[in-house]
């Protein structure tokens, strides 16, 4: 399972901001931490702002803060702002699904997609912060 770069940047940005509710996170710091340009990050943050998950602060530092409900917003909510992870037809898919083999393969791929959606849809930002914290504690 792979997510697009912008989706990963969005998830990381949300987690950075939601980890300390109310605190302004400096966009430049996040850009540096995840190895993306401030310009690139700003585009992602604007999309998250339009979705009502982040609020930006103008001026020095260019900060932003999480304004969603961390116990309600799921990873799937964030992912779907940037990409559609449901059964993406591959190149030539129209041709493949007219064959029994193609339809069989499509059925297996749909099973994988449904499972991925169920996983992303069941993990809230608050739960994800718990997973991140456990990773932090497990680090030698």
């Amino acid at each position, binding site marked *: 399972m792979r997510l697009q770069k912008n989706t990963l940047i969005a998830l990381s940005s949300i987690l950075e901001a939601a980890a300390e509710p109310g605190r302004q996170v400096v966009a430049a710091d996040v850009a540096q931490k995840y190895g993306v340009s401030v310009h690139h990050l700003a585009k992602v943050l604007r999309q998250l702002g339009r979705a009502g998950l982040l609020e930006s602060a103008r001026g020095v530092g260019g900060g932003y803060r999480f304004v969603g409900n961390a116990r309600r917003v*799921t990873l799937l909510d964030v992912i779907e702002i940037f990409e559609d992870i449901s059964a993406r037809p591959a190149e030539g898919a129209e041709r493949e699904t007219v064959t029994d083999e193609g339809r069989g393969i499509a059925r297996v791929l749909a099973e994988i997609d449904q499972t991925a959606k*169920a996983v992303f849809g*069941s993990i809230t930002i608050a*739960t994800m912060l*718990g997973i991140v914290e456990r990773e932090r504690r497990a680090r030698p």
Partner: protein
Amino acid sequence: MPKDTFRIRPVDRADLGEVIDIDAEATGLRKVDYWYELFARYGGARGRQQRFFLVAEQGPRIVGFIIGEVRDWEFGSPPCGWVFGISVRRQDRQSGVASRMLDAICEDFRRAGVDKVRTLLARDDHLVMSFFRSQAMMAAPFIALERDLLDRTP
């Protein structure tokens, strides 16, 4: 509802009416025979070693229930705790009832000598799956499979 206003205890026969109501509120089905049969197998003192049926009680009301058991060596898996039923009255959700019930049954599982707890959920049951996720539960190394028995040509 403040967290310290309810207590978790083993189910009594007298609780079953409310347990059935809580289940019916969530599922839309009143499964009276099912719950009495489940009580016979999981309720009372004889169920306390490997089988656990607990309720959350607030004053005179039952506000939630949880059921589980220790399962041994299913498909090579060492004994582990299984939760196969949990529900909280709609009006009493978001107040820690389910978390406290899960903590209590996990403690029972630990006393029974197991160190893992598992459950099985419908893939589209986001509400309950989100709850278990919030309790640090992750995907187990198993996949649930099924087959339509009306289809006789596998």
